[in-house]
């Protein structure tokens, strides 16, 4: 079964440093997402991306965050200057949209655990 691949699985960074989280979505999917889960809390939507532009972003997704699909296969989330409160699990997801038979797939990656120290 196709998978969404995220790297690294765990990243430790110093406060103020830039981090890039990487995702390889399922190859025929067109819609891409990032979610965040602070330890012990619910999963929160960050941003959705389609046709090389952001479809929607949440209040969490401020100017410190950016997304990019640089080469047609990778989908990255960049945090420019990390804060302690950015420590969380970050999930990438991809989907193929929907058609007459309903939703076509929605798959999560296994996540990147970001620790800001």
């Amino acid at each position: 079964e196709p998978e969404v691949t995220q790297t690294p699985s765990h990243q430790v960074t110093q406060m103020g440093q830039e981090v890039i989280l990487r995702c390889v979505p399922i190859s025929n999917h067109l819609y891409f997402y990032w979610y965040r889960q602070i330890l012990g809390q619910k999963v929160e939507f960050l941003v959705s991306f389609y046709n090389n532009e952001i479809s929607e972003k949440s209040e969490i997704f401020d100017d410190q965050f950016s997304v990019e699909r640089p080469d047609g296969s990778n989908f990255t989330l960049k945090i420019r200057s990390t804060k302690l409160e950015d420590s969380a699990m970050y999930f990438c997801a991809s989907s193929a949209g929907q058609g007459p038979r309903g939703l076509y797939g929605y798959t999560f990656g296994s996540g990147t655990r970001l620790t800001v120290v």
Partner: protein
Amino acid sequence: AQTVTQSQPEMSVQEAETVTLSCTYDTSENNYYLFWYKQPPSRQMILVIRQEAYKQQNATENRFSVNFQKAAKSFSLKISDSQLGDTAMYFCAFMRPRGSNYKLTFGKGTLLTVNP
């Protein structure tokens, strides 16, 4: 904005028994999807079951079934013949497809423990 409420922060069940996890949601939309995701200690998000709002028939997947009450905006998950491997956090999620956006809104989760 859509909200998803899971009123049971924690639940426990004996192995082989049946347990029901509750979820309610708030929306004025007519076309939407509802999901249950399982998150084991590995923290991976695993789809358990999905329900399309336009379908009256409740979705089932092996030991997992839902009770979808559209008018009451309720979407509970029933796990039959509970197994130790069912121990996990369970999240209810709502999706309202709109244009090129299929974002999920999650509840706070229910931690289910299956006891031997």
